[in-house]
């Protein structure tokens, strides 16, 4: 058969830029007919951009898309649908107050004269649902259905238009495990009919469980494209999060002191779903770096926000230096002894149009020597900024220059300089070296080790395994809102962590 040789879908050299950011950097993708093809990658790796390009929602800056061997130029999703494509978005596109059949036939209604042939429409939908064993009642009102069933309505919508290629964008993110298993059965059935499925996810075990082939994206590039049966979880985790730089940091044994940062049964619930952070307990003692590993999006950011006071707790306690700060605001917690290097240096960690002096003054600005009785001492702020710029080697023209002009690494040094200069007992460093150059990485790592040796308690949150392994004395792995494991550094290696990050307990305890 000639059809078997020609891929169902092929993308060649796709490039998409948003300003200076390259969301897709020469992405190649080959999807064979009838296969379930996993698209893996962390948040921001470029999965969604690639899918919107394939589906005609966005135009690539470079590159071609071929459908069944012929190049296509979709002007919109309407063209893609006409060519037999269907997409189920993360946020469903349904009319909640309409019935299932109305939603499904919308835009392609069977007509009798000028009117919708309601009976035919209903019957078609019922037949379709039965044939694909989706078990959806055509007369149900969509708004009253569970999330899992609504997703099936979306799939039916695509099938009603005879989609031969289905894109499912993170379909399992909203599902319970049972619903997920149901979805997988539907996916297998559809693939068995010769339909092709692009399955976008960042959950490793799902890819291992259901896909035939998998393409891994990182920072907009394809880092892996293999048959699922020929790879393993560890290789995929490395392709998702790995970094080629070899990290070696010299550090002595930890000298542990009192517990300075503690979370007890910390819970953050999500509206109508499983909690984002589920009964997490963690303790960080003076003189140690505790690494919090995990694929991004498993509750780490929410946990950190709850620790520093940017997000209210739904349950549990936070203690800093033994003091309960569960209900306290950011200022109180900072005063109690938390410093915090946030994940997003540009939109949380700094004020880009403001000067380095103003940036470095933040949260020191109320007290002596920068302020006295409510008045700011501008020369003290400038002097302090000059000292920090010199000590941390920030490359900036002067302390009055805006930090928005700095490179990523230098901006990060400003943030790190400010937070470390608190000399706070507890430090939370969230993705402290993301997107910075190698020199800055080494510098920041050395500073973190120095802080540890000075007796601070450091919680290091990172999705870079190499960073976790290089710096941590103890490693926690977070998965779907829970702490799945608590390992001493000596007990951890890439393989164990990779499996844990994928949600699997290590085989030999």
């Amino acid at each position: 058969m000639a059809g078997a040789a020609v891929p169902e879908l092929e993308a060649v050299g796709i490039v998409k830029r948003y300003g200076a950011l390259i969301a897709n950097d020469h992405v190649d993708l080959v999807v064979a007919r009838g296969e379930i093809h996993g698209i893996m990658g962390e948040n921001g790796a470029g999965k969604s951009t690639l899918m919107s390009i394939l589906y005609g929602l966005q135009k690539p800056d470079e590159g071609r898309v071929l459908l069944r061997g012929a190049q296509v130029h979709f002007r919109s999703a309407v063209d893609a649908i006409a060519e037999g494509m269907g997409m189920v978005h993360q946020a469903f596109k349904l009319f909640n107050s309409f019935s299932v059949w109305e939603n499904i036939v919308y835009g392609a209604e069977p007509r009798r004269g000028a009117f919708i042939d309601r009976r035919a429409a209903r019957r078609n939908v019922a037949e379709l649902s039965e044939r694909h064993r989706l078990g959806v009642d055509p007369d149900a009102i969509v708004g009253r259905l569970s999330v899992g069933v609504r997703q099936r309505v979306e799939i039916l919508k695509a099938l009603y238009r005879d989609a031969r290629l289905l894109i499912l964008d993170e379909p399992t993110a909203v599902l319970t495990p049972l619903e997920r298993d149901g979805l997988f059965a539907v996916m297998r059935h559809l693939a068995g009919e010769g339909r092709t499925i692009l399955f976008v996810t960042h959950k490793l075990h799902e890819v291992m469980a259901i896909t035939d082939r998998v393409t891994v994206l990182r920072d907009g590039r394809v880092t892996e494209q293999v048959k699922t049966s020929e790879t393993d979880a560890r290789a995929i985790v490395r392709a998702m999060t790995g970094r080629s730089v070899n990290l070696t940091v010299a550090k002595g044994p930890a000298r542990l002191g009192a517990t300075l940062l503690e979370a007890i049964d910390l819970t953050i619930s999500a509206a109508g779903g499983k909690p984002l952070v589920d009964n997490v307990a963690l303790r960080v003692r003076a003189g140690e770096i505790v690494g919090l590993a995990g694929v991004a999006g498993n509750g780490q950011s929410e946990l950190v926000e709850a620790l520093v006071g940017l997000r209210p707790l739904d349950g549990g306690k936070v203690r800093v230096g033994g003091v309960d700060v569960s209900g306290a605001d950011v200022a109180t917690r900072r005063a109690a002894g938390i410093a915090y290097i946030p994940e997003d240096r540009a939109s949380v960690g700094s004020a880009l149009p403001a000067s380095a002096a103003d940036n470095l003054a933040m949260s020191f600005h109320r007290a002596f020597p920068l302020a006295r009785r409510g008045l700011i001492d501008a020369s003290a702020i400038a002097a302090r900024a000059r000292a920090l710029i010199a000590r941390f080697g920030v490359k900036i023209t002067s302390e009055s220059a805006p930090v928005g002009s700095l490179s990523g690494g230098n901006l990060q040094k400003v943030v790190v300089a400010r937070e470390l200069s608190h000399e706070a007992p507890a430090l939370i460093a969230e993705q402290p070296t993301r997107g910075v150059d190698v020199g800055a990485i080494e510098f920041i790592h050395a500073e973190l080790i120095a802080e540890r040796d000075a007796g601070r308690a450091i919680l290091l949150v990172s999705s870079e395994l190499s960073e976790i392994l290089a710096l941590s004395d103890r490693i926690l792995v977070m998965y779907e809102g829970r702490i799945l494991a608590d390992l001493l550094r000596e007990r951890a290696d890439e393989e164990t962590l990779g499996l844990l990050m994928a949600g699997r307990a290590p085989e030999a305890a």
Partner: protein
Amino acid sequence: MSAASRPEDAAARRWRPPSAAIAILFAALVGGVLVFASGANPFDAYAQIFLGALAFDNWPNTLNWATPLVGMTLVAAIPLRGGMVNLGGDGQLVIGALVAAIIPVYLPGPGPLVAIAALGAAAIAAGLYAALAAWGETRHGVPMLISSLLLSYPAVGVASYIVRFPLRDATTGLPQTALVPEGARLMNLSGPLNIGLLIIASITLLVLFVDRRTVAGYELRMRGINRRFAGYGGVRLDAQAMRVMFVSGAIAGLVGAIIVLGSQFRFIDDALLTPSYTWSGLMAALLANGEPAGAILAGLFFAALQTGGFAMQREIAVPRVLTMVLQSIVILFLAMRHGAGKATR
């Protein structure tokens, strides 16, 4: 590092020419065309505006107009400095004016003390009313942009009712309160000018000082640049919003009180809102994106423009609405260049 650093480099490279100057020039051109189309000489019109505002004899008029307008500019600029918008200036102005008109009529005591009490009470009442909008946002999630504006209407309506019925001055047929006793009126300086000018001038200096030299000013500035950064750094955003709105409303209340105690001597329904100080002030604040010195200059500029507009209307019969058109074009032009979201971020 290459990809991560580029957007920040780009932000620094995007230096803009002083866009306010360009906007004013552009507005003058469009306005000139309008005047020309209506059959008058644009150069005459602009000459009259200029002379009417800035000829030495006309300074008191311009300053008299600038007093409430610059006051209302501060009302808008202070929240805007922190990325907040107070659209309720009208209501706050009216509350202040009404309180200031009532207290001297009913509170016995030496005139100057009564005046001070009236000014203070007006500021506090209007400030509390403005803080209500902030409370609605921080506690109940009603955007302040909406709540501040919506709260304005009941204030204006209730004030209107009060002067039409319970507190109406029965000796005249008009919807206005009784005259404030002479002792409680603001001291006259010269011509139309009274001590209210000095009050607003000192508040202006105080605002500049707070903005540049105090912890509160620093925190508000940082909030305006990046709200999340301020929150992350420990600025108590909710309490700050309440305080800022209280101060903003209190200044509006003072402006209302100064108009009542300084020039009208009673609360006259609608008299405070007709000149639309609130909206001119808001435009001046937007022109400077909340930066107080720039906003004050813009407020003075608008005051001069409007005073000149009266002269132009008097001398060559070009309607003074032209000056409002000029003002609007200036703002529209700036909004086009910066993108509407930038000013309120």
